[in-house]
């Protein structure tokens, strides 16, 4: 709660709205005890008394009634009516929305069509019709305003409920014996409540305005009672001669509605989890690189891609997550390097750091270099980096459905990828090249598939398109981040053999990120094992898998069940990987390692070994030559 208030008041406008609204609310609450004149006593002698005259701080109206008193009593009425209307609209609208969204099918269809009918009328016409049917009066105006706003709530809440009703915890609740009503009240409602509150806070101002509108037309509060709308309505005939009678209630309406809306927007921003996590803030086009980073000297051999002592961190608040710690890797043309690790080991962040694709903020590259043919990419300007991305270094991601644009055909997207990097290519040439690419990734019937949208293709076909896209500009290096994890095994086998053929035919270098030893064993020449942001072991795949040197590698391999072993107990590693914002000194695996000695928990343990293989361990399983 305090965190929420802090977040709310960091927004200056929301804070201002809260202060103004607070003052107005306080005044409205205190009105009966304030030393005010009776708002309904007429004194025609003082008609249209000017503000600041004796006895009339804000002047008097056309019947000589005290404006200040009428204003405060009117504000009370308007606020109460607006709040009650918002509550009623939220209550009924949300109830309809939840029922429609939860039960779906026919219930949903009927309820939503009724709501659509309600929405088909202009709101003022509908409100007028309701007041006409029920008769004039403040309560009827309130009902009209609430009814007019029901569709807004119903539609919003229905959308959210539909998503919630298909979540697994709702199924789990049904299996726990809960009935529909209990599920709606105890499982669904607590999850939609924040949205209802947000929607209410942003609409209450609107409802105050609508009620004032009806009163202005004489359909709301009846004389001698007043609300802000009726005050304006009565003053409108004297606007040119005695403007203060109109301006004063007008300013009050303006202040209320403005402060409510500013505060409501602030509440929405502070409560919305997407906004809170900063997901809607636009990341920079290139990851921030720390100015004072240590730049290692270039390797004289200048491999195709050389990642040197890369350090990438995430700075969230005052916490620092060391996602990647001094990672050094290199690839040669035609070589496939596997990076294997569990979730949170830093393998994807390493890959994204290569071309500065880590979201910034919060990501910062704090050290190291990434050299493409000897030239450091991290020091390069945006334009160079942009040309490198896709052109020299291309990516394939895990879920092609989320990386392909749903509204363009795959042919158009392929052609665009080609033309973005070389605008001299004509549209028809780009199209022809797209067709050729589709053939290269062995998509059957490529001509007809060009016109397909991503959702019309199966997962395996989409991933082929993803690969075709990465090949579009004949890159030298492909970084594949778990490209087959979302696919079925039979499809995975096809994609892997496709990647293998491509690198043999074109001399592509592939960095293949995965958590699957079987995949690494079949595709990669060399493998690097990552744990808690560091490489713990590196070497030729066969030799690492046959004789793992780091205890983590050895035990991780033992955890992977192999087909053909029959029914058995599986090996496990007890405990969890450390959190990367609080890494222990010494070996990161020490806490889970059964060979751990006191010296494993102090200092920095370097990656050591021979020409081919290296390991970060004081007591390795194998002595490396």
């Amino acid at each position, binding site marked *: 709660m305090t965190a929420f208030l802090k977040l709310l008041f960091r927004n200056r406008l929301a804070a201002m709205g809260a202060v103004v609204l607070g003052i107005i609310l306080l005044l409205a609450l205190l009105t009966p005890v304030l030393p005010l004149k009776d708002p309904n006593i007429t004194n025609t002698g003082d008609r249209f008394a000017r503000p600041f005259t004796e006895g009339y701080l804000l002047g008097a109206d056309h019947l000589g009634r005290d404006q200040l008193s009428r204003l405060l009593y009117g504000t009370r009425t308007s606020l109460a009516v607006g709040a009650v209307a918002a509550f009623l609209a939220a209550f009924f609208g949300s109830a309809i929305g939840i029922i429609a969204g939860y039960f779906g099918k026919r219930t949903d269809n009927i309820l939503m069509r009724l709501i659509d009918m309600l929405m088909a009328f202009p709101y003022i016409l509908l409100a007028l019709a309701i007041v006409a049917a029920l008769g004039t009066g403040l309560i009827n105006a309130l009902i009209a305003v609430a009814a007019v706003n029901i569709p807004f709530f119903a539609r919003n809440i229905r959308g959210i409920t539909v998503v919630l009703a298909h979540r697994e915890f709702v199924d789990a609740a049904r299996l726990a014996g809960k009935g529909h009503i209990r599920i709606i009240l105890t499982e669904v409602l607590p999850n939609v409540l924040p949205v209802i509150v947000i929607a209410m806070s942003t609409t209450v101002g609107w409802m105050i305005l609508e009620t004032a509108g009806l009163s202005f037309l004489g359909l709301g509060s009846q004389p001698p009672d007043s609300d802000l709308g009726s005050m304006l309505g009565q003053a409108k005939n004297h606007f040119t001669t005695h403007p203060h009678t109109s301006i004063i209630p007008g300013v009050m309406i303006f202040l209320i509605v403005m402060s409510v809306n500013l505060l409501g927007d602030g509440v929405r921003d502070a409560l919305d989890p997407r906004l809170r996590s900063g997901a809607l803030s636009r990341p920079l086009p290139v990851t921030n690189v720390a100015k004072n980073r240590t730049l290692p000297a270039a390797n004289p051999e200048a491999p195709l891609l050389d990642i040197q002592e890369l350090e990438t961190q995430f700075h969230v608040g005052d916490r620092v997550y060391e996602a990647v710690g001094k990672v050094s890797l290199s690839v040669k043309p035609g070589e496939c390097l596997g990076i294997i690790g569990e979730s949170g080991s830093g393998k994807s962040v390493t890959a994204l750091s290569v071309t500065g694709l880590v979201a910034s903020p919060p990501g910062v590259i704090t050290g190291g270099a990434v050299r493409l043919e000897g030239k450091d990419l991290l020091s390069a300007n945006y334009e160079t980096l942009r040309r490198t991305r896709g052109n020299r270094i291309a990516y394939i991601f895990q879920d092609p459905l989320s990386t392909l644009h749903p509204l363009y055909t795959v042919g158009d997207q392929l052609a665009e990828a080609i033309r973005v990097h070389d605008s001299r290519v004509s549209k028809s040439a780009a199209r022809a090249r797209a067709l050729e690419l589709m053939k290269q990734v062995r998509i059957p019937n490529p001509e007809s598939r060009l016109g397909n949208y991503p959702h019309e293709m199966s997962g395996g076909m989409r991933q082929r398109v993803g690969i075709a896209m990465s090949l579009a500009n004949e890159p030298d290096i492909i970084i594949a981040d778990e490209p087959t994890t979302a696919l079925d095994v039979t499809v995975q086998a096809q994609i892997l053999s496709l990647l293998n053929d491509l690198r043999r035919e074109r001399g592509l270098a592939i960095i293949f990120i995965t958590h699957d030893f079987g995949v690494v064993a079949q595709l990669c020449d060399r493998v690097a094992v990552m744990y808690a942001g560091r490489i713990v072991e590196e070497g030729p795949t066969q030799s690492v898998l046959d004789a793992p040197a780091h205890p983590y590698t050895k035990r991780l391999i033992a955890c992977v069940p192999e087909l053909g072993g029959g029914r058995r107990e599986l090996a496990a590693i007890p405990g*969890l990987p450390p959190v990367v914002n609080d890494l222990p000194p010494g070996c990161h695996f020490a806490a889970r390692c059964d060979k751990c000695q006191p010296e494993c928990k102090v200092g920095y343990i370097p990656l050591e070994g021979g020409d081919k293989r290296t390991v970060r361990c004081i007591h390795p399983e194998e002595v490396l030559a």
Partner: protein
Amino acid sequence: MTTQKLALKVSDLSKTFPIGGGLFSKPKAGVRAVRPVSFEVPEGETLGIVGESGCGKSTFARMLVGLLEPTTGHIEIAGKALDNADPAAFGRLIQYMFQDPISSLNPRKTIRQIMEAPLKLLHGMDKPQRDARISEIFASVNLREEFLERYPHEFSGGQAQRIGIARALAASPEIIILDEPVSALDVSVQAQVLNLMARLKAEFGLTYLFISHDLAVVEAVSDRIMVLYFGSVVEIGRAENVFSAPKHPYTKLLAGSAPVVGRPLTAPESAAAELPDPLNPPPGCPFAGRCPRVTDKCRAEEPPLEAMGEDHFAACFHPL
């Protein structure tokens, strides 16, 4: 098998989802997500169910726990027929453990509230009984009782999955359906969860239906394995035989596709192979379009599930 009590008996269970049709019109067509399936599971067995995405695994599992009403067929659990799709009636006999450990826990409820629901609603326990039972279950799944007051987002995947097991156990069911219980977990953690489940099965005398796409995991935990393709059972047999000596060409393809350390990478089939269109299913064997042994008979007739060796059935005219 004949002397053992049956935990689950399923006969002719199928599901067809209607397609199209509006407020007043009848559905135009139907997708057959699960074709009629019959099988029995003896008490104390783990039956592995494997198949690729779209093969009907999840639809099948949701029918078994009463979350989805079957189009045809009967379900009998521990001798009791369950023909009305009422999750509460099912809940006391069969429970479901979900794939995504976090999303199966309501983010706005404490673990205690989540654990109490089945005890209160399915077994009508009072507060002291519930507390005692929760302590007992938490001790069995190696969770500390202080976790009870926390919210789901505070847990790692492995812990959340153990909470999922604890909730399923709380209903004291005969059978638990495990729907991809470890596919969201890291390898080093998945074995922790699998071994725990094996221990609990012995401790509470449970029967498991273990659904997964990971063949090696299924083989390691199951007594028997059932292979699904396009909504029908293509093969069912002892775990040690199904992948090592498959009878159905699809099972062989599956087993051959799993990446294995030390096996060279070869494309197991042509790239053109895709699942048949569920809206317009081909007549005959659904695998005919991808099968290397296909004949005209396969394209015309649907092969029945037939015995091929001891406790081994396959639906194929030309078994391997």
